[in-house]
């Protein structure tokens, strides 16, 4: 913090009327195991700083891995020269100091302190469980463990000072189910901020290995209209697009199919989308965003009506609204942009079994390939793998088909929202049933 303060002072003496200095330092460990052997261990302490420098309303940004005094001293005059070359941005601004939410429980030091050997053993056991899950599982493509401790710090010329630590854990699994020549993957990762929140190895295995086993041997089906169930695994093909469409910058510039839909009904009354940066122990929980605006819970779509978009300080000024604490820097070297925190489609009350039992001619989509819902055009298009259901009964696996519809057909055609949401990812959804989508084959 002292270093950031000092750099900030240097910026001001060099003529900056507004500046911020953002620092990231990390401690990372990644271990992967395949076939009972450690395949890789990667360890590092990456980090660096980024400086935003405003002179005459014009901005320049520099970032460096080298935070030595000599390096910073040579950087500041360059910033000052650079700022004269950009153009004045009437919306440029920075937040002032306020109190930030506390006690969000986003640091777990106990897991960090465990010896590497324990983490390797954990992975070996996880892999064995996966290989024993089902006779169709023929090989492991590797399991992995990742831990990251991040310190994010900021000092700005309006008096904001913060620095906080958070932890992030990931456990990944990749197995292959085989039938004859055909191979099918079951893979993915689950995340946690507090390692105890990570599902038990059995649950991780069941979640991803079952996917491979269920889908192996899939074949195309008759093209036409089907009832479609998106499970939490495949609903990403809907919320990825919604996330971009609900980004305030995209909406402001028109790069969003929801751009002119504020206050309008775009979905059925049971459909809500929420971004909650204050969810205790959440994967993307944070007290303050990367510009210094306090974080919050933001309801984006409420009972089918668009209520808000996600904003950083500048885009909020342009759109004449309040920032939502959504400024995000991917690393020290990135200028702030807008990003979601814990974003989710609100769960409903339906039970997945009941919804499946109610299908006349439908598909439970387990896996999608491709973009899914396109955030600019609002068109949904993807390749899918799943299970064919007729009169409430699961018939057989489906592969090699495509699924298409407009956002309107999807969001205004939601037949059921289930109660099976899990917060093991920073974007998530319960299972959703859409009354009608077009399958191509």
């Amino acid at each position: 913090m002292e270093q950031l303060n000092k750099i900030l002072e240097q910026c001001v003496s060099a003529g900056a009327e507004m500046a911020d200095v953002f620092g990231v330092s990390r401690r990372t460990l990644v271990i992967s195991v395949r076939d009972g052997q450690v395949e890789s261990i990667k360890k590092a302490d990456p980090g660096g700083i980024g400086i935003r420098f405003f002179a005459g309303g014009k901005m320049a940004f520099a970032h460096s891995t080298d935070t030595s005094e000599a390096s910073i001293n040579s950087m500041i005059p360059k910033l000052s020269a650079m700022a004269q070359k950009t153009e004045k941005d009437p919306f440029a601004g920075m937040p002032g100091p306020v109190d930030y939410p506390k006690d969000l429980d986003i640091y777990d030091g106990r897991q960090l302190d465990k010896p590497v050997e324990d983490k390797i053993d954990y992975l070996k056991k996880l892999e064995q469980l996966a290989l024993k899950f089902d006779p169709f599982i023929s090989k492991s493509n590797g399991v992995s463990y990742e831990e990251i401790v991040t310190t994010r710090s900021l000092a700005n010329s309006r008096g904001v000072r913060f620095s906080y630590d958070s932890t992030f854990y990931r456990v990944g699994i990749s197995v292959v189910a085989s039938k004859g020549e055909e191979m099918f993957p079951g893979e993915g990762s689950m995340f946690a901020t507090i390692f105890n929140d990570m599902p038990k190895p059995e649950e991780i295995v069941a979640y991803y290995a079952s996917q491979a086993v269920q889908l192996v041997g899939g074949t195309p089906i008759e093209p036409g209209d089907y009832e479609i169930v998106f499970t939490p695994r495949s609903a990403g093909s809907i919320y990825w697009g919604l996330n971009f469409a609900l980004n305030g910058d995209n909406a402001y510039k028109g790069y969003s199919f929801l751009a002119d839909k504020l206050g309008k009904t775009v979905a059925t009354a049971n459909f809500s989308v929420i971004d909650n940066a204050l969810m205790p122990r959440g994967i993307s929980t944070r007290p303050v965003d990367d510009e210094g605006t306090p974080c919050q819970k933001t309801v984006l779509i409420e009972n089918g009506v668009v209520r808000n978009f996600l904003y950083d300080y500048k885009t909020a000024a342009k759109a004449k609204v309040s920032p939502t604490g959504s400024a995000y820097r991917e690393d020290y070297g990135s200028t702030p942009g807008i990003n979601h925190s814990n974003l989710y489609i609100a769960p409903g009350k339906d039970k997945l079994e009941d919804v499946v039992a109610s299908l006349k001619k439908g598909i439970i989509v387990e896996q999608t390939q491709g973009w899914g819902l396109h955030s600019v055009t609002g068109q949904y298009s993807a390749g899918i793998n799943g299970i064919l259901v007729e009169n409430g009964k699961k018939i057989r696996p489906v592969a090699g088909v495509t699924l298409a519809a407009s956002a309107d057909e999807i969001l205004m055609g939601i037949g059921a929202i289930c109660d099976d949401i899990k917060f093991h990812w920073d974007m998530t959804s319960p299972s959703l049933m859409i009354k009608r989508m077009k399958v191509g084959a």
Partner: protein
Amino acid sequence: MGQIMLLSAASFLAPKLLSFAELRAESAFSPPFDDDEVKTLLSKALARGGDFSEIYFESVQSLSLKLSERVFSEAVLGFSEGTGVRTVDGVKNGYAYINGVDFAGAREAAATAAFIANSPRNIEVAAPVDKKAPGYITARIPLASISEARKMELMEQAEQVARDFSSHIKQVDITYYDHIKKRRVANSNGLRIENELPLIWIVIEVLAEKDGVRHQGRSRISAHQGFEFFDENSMVDAAREAARESVDMLAAKAAPGGTMPVVMECGWGGVLMHEAVGHGLEGDFIYKGTSIYADKLGKKVASDLITLVDDSSWPNARGTTEFDDEGTPGQRNVLIENGIVTGFMHDLISAGQLKMAPTGNGRRESFHHYPIPRMTNTFLDNGKSNPADIIADTPKGIYIKSLSWGSVDTISGQFNFAVREAYLIENGKITGPVSGATLIGRGIDVLTNIDAVANDLKLGVGICGKDQWVPVTSGQPTVRIASGITVGGSA
């Protein structure tokens, strides 16, 4: 550009200002470790055994300029420098890295990397022999010698052309990025090699809107080359192309669904081969047995028309490496020749596992990563057909002018692509535009179903992600895939 545009290019040329270019030239690259230090680090990394150890040093100075909503909103100057130490034992990688070139830090990294190995052997670190980079990449006009004002002027011209193209154009976003990357690789087998790579990367996005219908056109140009790149490549042409696409596609109808012949225009459409076939020929998937091509060496997997090449020696192309990030020189690798699998793409580990020669495909995004087998410039080689004849010879199908992006599951071989610009082919003629299509299929089915390959090979530029991002090109001549691809449209 409204009021702000009045700050024309001339005002950027105020003589008292140092250009960033001059400023950048000031900071020299950090000195490398001396011979003794290199030897100490490489030995330390082999303290618990292993096949070899390696030091990778990288220093990148970058400039990024962004023109958005008619304003030069961002100028970013970046500096990143670091050192990675790796120990390789069989298929195992131990890797640690530090910012900068601090020797004490690098020694600690070497000790961390050594942890992976457990095969105590006495391995002598060989005396370093300097290898010369092959010279596939040239910079007659160094990027740092051109003022930012000149770069901004080119962007403004391009922006104006896109805006003027049509009244339906609503937004133009242009990002200019260049960098100079210095790399040094030294390993315990005595290899030592270094060079400096320039990179230019320009992305132009244009949004058109009419009656609530939106389309975002995109064009990208890039090369590892000095500023003479712009003698033959024009930002203005690229902007006009993105604007044309965004406006033409406003009239698009919903794409048809079903299996139909697909004619893919030359260029970036090669990403189909990259995803559908290329990834499955990367050596790590081969030795792990998780590619459908694992047991196909010497076997016929495609029609006679198919020759697939990965060429990291293509002069100045975006995927060209000079030498890969393990120090293996770039070269032309024929992966499939007249339908028969003739080779794979290797890094040192996969080559060693399969007892084949390294092919120069061990690449990494930055010093934050250890290398893995990756593509470089991957393309389907020229055939003999005339592109116009292929279209004329197709009674009904879809003509794909450009794809946004795609992905593949190497295990199942299933791929998918989001189509950006496409047209119907009716009675041998290209007719109306169609939107909202996805292409899906299996790579092996595409290979056997290509029934026409034209003679107009072109490379398209892009970026490829496989845990790490690397610059690549994908290319192909115009081709027809008679069946095996499903078009997922809603009409």
